């Protein structure tokens, strides 16, 4: 596909802009701070994002199996799921990719009439979004499950150690 080779050419630009857009989603102080690290991020959060989006981008161009895609997305989304984001904020970084591609390749797409290819790429990205959303939800559900477990365990233990419970258990 023509558009894929264009994407390959534009990889550094798109990735850099994508990375910065993702960092923009962090609270201003953290974002400013993370962004100052330019091309050589020294902290794991931005490194994870950096590595993750590169993997996704390459996957988009060269194709990857869904397990690998899942792993790449998981590494980013699992972190974002615990970092002060709403659901849309946590995964809208993938939407950014759509916009970036349209913006970066706008001229080429128009001149070479690549709209169909663009649609195909975008539907790949939609697949990514679906998967990211599932991962995000799984993570959040996990968080709430953990919170609920803590509460439940407290109550359960209190009951479990009560005299009444033990008598019931003994009867059984």
């Amino acid at each position: 596909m023509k558009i894929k080779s264009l994407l390959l050419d534009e990889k550094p630009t798109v990735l850099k802009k994508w990375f910065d857009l993702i960092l923009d989603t962090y609270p201003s102080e953290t974002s400013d701070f993370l962004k100052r690290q330019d091309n050589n991020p020294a902290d794991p959060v931005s490194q994870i994002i950096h590595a993750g989006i590169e993997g996704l981008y390459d996957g988009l161009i060269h194709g990857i199996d869904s397990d690998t895609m899942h792993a790449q997305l998981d590494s980013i989304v699992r972190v974002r799921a615990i970092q002060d984001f709403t659901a849309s904020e946590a995964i809208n970084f993938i939407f950014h990719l759509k916009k970036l591609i349209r913006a970066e390749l706008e001229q080429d797409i128009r001149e070479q009439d690549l709209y169909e290819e663009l649609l195909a790429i975008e539907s790949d990205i939609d697949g990514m979004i679906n998967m990211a959303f599932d991962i995000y939800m799984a993570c959040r559900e996990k968080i709430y499950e953990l919170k609920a477990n803590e509460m439940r365990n407290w109550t359960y233990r209190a009951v479990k150690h009560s005299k009444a419970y033990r008598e019931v258990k003994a009867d059984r």
Partner: protein
Amino acid sequence: MGMLFSLFMVAALIVVAYAGVAVVNMQNLFGVVIPYAAIAIFLAGVILKVLKWSRSPVPFHIPTTCGQQKSLPWIKHSSTDNPQTTGGVIMRMALEIFLFRSLFRNIKSEVTDGRATYGSDKLLWLGGLAFHLTFFTVLIRHLRFFAEPVPAMINTIDALDGFMQIGVPHLLMSGVILVAAAAYLLWRRVGISQVKYISLAADYFPLFLIISIGLTGIIMRYFAKVDIVSVKKMTMGLVSLNPVVLSGVGSIFYIHMFLISVLLIYFPFSKLMHMGGVFLSPTRNLSNNSREKRHVNPWDYPVKVHTYEQYEDEFREKMKEAGIPVEKE
């Protein structure tokens, strides 16, 4: 901002010294008065600061243990990273002070397969050690200006320092390494975002100052040479309390002296006091023997406690019911 301000400050100091000597001829001020004042402030400042620290006690025994404790005789004990005895503490402090043991441990975070991993990172250790060791060497080397005859040891250090015998006069490696290491430390504050973010004017200023001191020294030795014999006559005059000012000693010498004076004056009021503080750090200079030997807190005072008697009074019935022995039936 802190960086530009510091750079500006050091530049201004250089201009002041140059103007003071070359324009208004205050050789006496820059060659005698300020150096004496600087030495006095440095010595008194450092001592007072340490005494001030020493007035706060170490109430608790809080070494950071970085190795296996001494427990059972057959378990290998890490005697310097987790010292149990004073000897161990001395070893630990020596490693810390001479070899920067803790910095040697430095690791950096990396990410592989989406997971945080860690790799060795010895650059800061190397840069820091190079900076401090060469600073010390340069300092010792300068004793040749403050002793007559020059002790043989100083000549030996000089010879070792010029060991590569590059150029004439011999390139003294310590000076070059000092400036290079300081430049690296400065680069870190600009090039590594985290370090840039935490850096204050107080971090840039001493670096610019020391780099300037190093460069003026290097310029005097290799490029715009000063009359070394006159310089020594002046420095000897200072230390033998018969100060003299000799003509024919270039302004660059006065700039060098003035910057050193500023460094000495600045020293006791700044983070440079880590030189003294490192000896007093309670997480490093205590042995991990607090279970073996009681450590006394000098400001200890009684606190309100919940005694057993109060406890039993509150729960006596429940205790009895549960079959727990009580003091009072």
